Structures are given as structure tokens and as C-alpha cells.
């Protein structure tokens, strides 16, 4: 599974401003909706909140991977947010989160592609070198290049 088919350079945000987790989700949903006129922000926000209620998607080491299956999404898309300052995300290791990978996927009976993407992201995040380079990237372009290089 290669991620380059799901993440575009235009989907990467550097120095994204969010005061807290709720603020991040509101701003992120608005940001994503710019790419899709038919997306309903309220519905999308509700889906993200529902997922976070199950368990935080803050997987540790400053990373979160919120994800939803949204009926108006026709494929799978990944958005990357490097925050201007870390925020509390109720992460598993309780550390603040500073890099967020958002996945919005088309629902399907098996959800196989959605699962494959999440598994790939989770595996990539276990690579210390990749993580270091991601967190030290200083622009959208640099983030994108690291992501594609390690894909």
C-alpha cells in the first residue's frame, strides 16, 4: 500500500493554528470542506467526535491519526497538519500532539482500504528516523517530501 495516491501536497498544512482538540477539529473540518463543496461540516465534525469518544486517536509520540468513514467521500484522502503549538489530545501516552494525520474514507462493507491506510500510517509512525524527520520538517514541501520518501 502506497500512500502517495491518497495524500496531495495541497493536503499538507504547516504551522496550523489550533488552541485545543475541539478547536483543531472545527478548523480542520472547515479546511477539508474547502476541497469538497458537498461535504457537510456539521456531519463530518460529528463523525470525528464520535470516533474520539470511542478512544482517542492520539497514538503517542506527538502523533494523532483521526479517521472517519464519511458517506459523501468517494475515495480515501489523507490530510496532514503540523500544529503551530502542541495540544492536548488525550493521547495514549498523555503527551501533547503536534502532528496530525487525518483520514477521510469512503465507507465500504469491508473497509479494507481504510484499514490498510491506517495500518500503514501506524507502522510508519513506529520508525524513529521517519518520525524525527517529520517533526523537524520546516515547511509543507519538506513534510511532503519526507512522507513520500518513506512511503
Amino acid at each position, binding site marked *: 500500500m502506497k500512500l502517495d495516491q491518497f495524500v496531495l501536497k495541497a493536503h499538507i498544512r504547516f504551522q496550523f493554528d489550533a488552541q485545543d482538540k475541539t478547536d483543531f477539529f472545527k478548523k480542520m473540518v472547515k479546511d477539508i470542506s474547502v476541497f469538497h463543496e458537498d461535504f457537510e461540516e456539521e456531519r463530518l465534525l460529528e463523525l470525528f467526535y464520535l470516533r474520539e469518544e470511542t478512544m482517542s486517536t492520539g497514538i503517542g509520540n506527538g502523533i494523532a491519526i483521526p479517521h472517519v468513514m464519511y458517506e459523501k467521500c468517494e475515495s480515501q484522502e489523507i490530510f496532514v497538519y503540523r500544529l503551530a503549538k502542541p495540544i492536548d489530545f488525550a493521547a495514549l501516552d498523555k503527551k501533547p500532539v503536534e502532528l496530525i494525520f487525518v483520514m477521510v474514507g469512503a465507507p465500504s462493507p469491508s473497509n479494507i482500504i481504510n484499514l490498510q491506510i491506517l495500518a500503514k500510517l*501506524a507502522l510508519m509512525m513506529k520508525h524513529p528516523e521517519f518520525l524525527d524527520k517529520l517533526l523537524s520538517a520546516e515547511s509543507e514541501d519538506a513534510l511532503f517530501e519526507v512522507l513520500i520518501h518513506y512511503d
Partner: protein
Amino acid sequence: MTEAKLLVCIIEKEERLEDVLEALMEEGITGASILDARGMFEYMADEIPLFAGFRGLIQGNNPTNKMILSMVPDAATLQIAMNTIQSVYGDFSLPNTGIMFSLDIGEARGVKT
């Protein structure tokens, strides 16, 4: 290589295990080990937080399955065992039922007759 076969049967409807074992016993198949098993998807949804959101998508909501391992002496007995299980348990081709297959046994020690 012996004539013996290993029957591997994973059933998702745990409540049917008793019926399956009784039916096997009735056919004279008296040796089997019963193991608790979890499907990969169930395990990931329950144990790996990133996949917790997929828990609700798992049909049947059965946290564990049962695995029956039985070494039978030959192909004829294997056929009896598989047919017996299917007649009691139902069609394995349906979703959320389980899987049944057999393996040839190369060598065996400790077999009690």
C-alpha cells in the same frame, strides 16, 4: 507420512460448540482439543486503540471464537467428521460462521488409540 489428518475447525457461533462436540462424539470421534481463538479484525479492534473505531462494524459482536483441533486416523474419518460438523453447525460459506479445513500429518507422537 501417516494416513492421519488434522482437522482444524474454527466456529464463530460459540453457542453451537456443545452440539458440534456431542455430534462428533456420537460418530466415535473422541479426541479433540478446544482452543479459544480471536479473529485478526476483532483483535485489532479490541486491542489496538487506533482501530477501536471499527469495533462497531464487526458483525456478530462475538469476542471469541472456538477452534477445534482433532487428529483423525484417515481420510474416511475426516470426511465423517467434516460432514458431521457441517450438518450440526451449518454452512461455512455464510459470513460470520467460521472456517474448516484439514492438513496432512507428516509424523505423530503420543497418539492414543
